[in-house]
């Protein structure tokens, strides 16, 4: 029996095509993935992301534990509601999961994790946190909506009225307690401005209907994937996993090597890799020939070879784009084996699209 979010019946009533995603029955689209994609780039769309794991960690030493378990440094978070994107690594520097961490208070952090890795993440937290007295509270009582797009914040403000008060002045990557157990974060996974809203599961259907009435377009996981790909955002399990380090996944910026005396799991392995220079890197590809790039296609560069980790058609650019792991130092042009033929592609630095606009030359 697959898991279902509190909005399952709403999705079905809207005519969504439901698919299995990491053991969850989720909407892939409600009719047209491309229309939903454009709605987010041009106006406002909403996604049910209640399948993601929300976990609160409590304890006097929770900060010390997270500084040891996460490659980014939660000590950078000083104001309640501030958020940080980070990888959690194994001893060899491979990525166990990528997470968003919110600082709620000195003894309380909130973590949002991928649905597929939740069990493993929790086991890791228990293994390292138990002896430090860290209490793990799984917030299955919460649902989560992502409302994204250039008009997303204004539409949320209009729908929430007074309850949106403090959200209006939120900076990026910060969150606020909006009362009635609603937590509004200015974060997302689309390359557009917007919110991720956590709220009691019992309240989410009402908010969904109010946003829908407020001209926010329901969007499925299909559009979420093409949006994040255009934004150059890595997807766990595809673009990185336990055999890939953040340095090989274009996630160097999420690793806090300073302060140098902070030990964290995977640090030694990353330092060795950094000193030698990683042999592989994650780059963007734009297909110059006609066709569509897909995960696992072979990439041929001069004397080397790589592989596409995520690929699709970019609705915003009207071209096929991809993320690919290739030998370090790759640039210029390459060829991709697409259905038995070698097609021409160009190596670019992601993102492909930011705030509705192409940020690479076509």
């Amino acid at each position, binding site marked *: 029996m697959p898991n279902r979010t509190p909005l399952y019946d709403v999705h079905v009533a809207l005519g969504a*095509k439901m698919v299995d995603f990491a053991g969850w029955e989720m909407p*892939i*689209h409600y009719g*047209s*993935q*491309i229309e939903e994609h454009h709605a987010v780039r041009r106006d406002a769309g909403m996604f049910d992301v209640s399948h993601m794991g929300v976990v609160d960690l409590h304890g006097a030493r929770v900060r010390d534990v997270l500084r040891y378990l996460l490659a980014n440094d939660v000590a950078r978070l000083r104001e309640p509601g501030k958020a940080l994107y980070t990888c959690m690594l194994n001893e060899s520097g491979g990525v166990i999961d990528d997470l968003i961490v919110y600082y709620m208070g000195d003894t309380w952090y909130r973590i949002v994790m991928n649905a597929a890795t939740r069990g493993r993440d929790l086991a890791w937290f228990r293994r390292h946190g138990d002896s430090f007295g860290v209490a793990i509270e799984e917030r299955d009582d919460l649902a989560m909506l992502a409302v994204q797009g250039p008009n997303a914040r204004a539409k949320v403000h209009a729908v929430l009225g007074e309850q949106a008060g403090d959200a209006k002045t939120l900076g990026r990557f910060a969150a606020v307690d909006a009362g009635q157990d609603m937590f509004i974060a200015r974060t997302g996974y689309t390359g557009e401005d917007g919110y991720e809203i956590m709220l009691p599961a019992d309240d989410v259907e009402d908010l969904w209907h109010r946003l829908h009435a407020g001209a926010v377009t329901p969007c499925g996981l*299909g559009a979420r994937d*093409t949006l994040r790909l255009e934004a150059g955002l890595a997807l766990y399990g595809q673009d990185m996993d336990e055999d890939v380090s953040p340095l090989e996944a274009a996630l160097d910026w999420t690793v806090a090597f300073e302060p140098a005396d902070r030990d964290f799991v995977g640090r030694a392995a990353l330092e060795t890799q950094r000193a030698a220079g990683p042999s592989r890197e994650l780059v963007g590809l734009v297909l110059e020939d*006609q*066709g*569509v790039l*897909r995960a696992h296609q072979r990439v041929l560069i001069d004397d080397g070879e790589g592989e596409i980790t995520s690929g*699709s*058609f970019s*609705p915003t650019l009207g071209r*096929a784009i991809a993320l690919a792991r290739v030998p370090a130092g790759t640039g210029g042009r390459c060829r991709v084996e697409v*259905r038995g033929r070698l097609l021409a592609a160009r190596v670019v630095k992601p993102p492909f699209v930011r705030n509705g606009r192409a940020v690479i030359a076509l």
Partner: protein
Amino acid sequence: MSNVPANLKYAKSHEWVRAESDGSVTVGITEHAQDLLGDMVYVELPDVGRTLTAGKECAVVESVKAASDVYAPIAGEVLAVNDAVTAGPDLVNKDPYGEGWLFRLKPADVAELDKLLDAAGYERVVADESH
């Protein structure tokens, strides 16, 4: 149940075939097939003049989600291809039995049409798939 016009013939691999008055046949993919694939973003059609073998792949339709081969429902020579779907693949979604046709064939043997499924037969194929 999706739209399965009674005046067409069908292959199990989700192509439809329409016999035209001039003896040629028009081929496309069914509404059910386009619905399974989702928004089309790329279509690759055979060259005009090419001779197709029944049951062999001869074209590709790709949606945002996946690539799918199109199989020649009967043998024949390609008389024409629909350039409009190459330029605008979403025609396959919007009008799979009309503007979204893929190619026209001169059948090698008109009797092959009789081996294809009728609408009721194809509906059973679709029903079996969803179980």
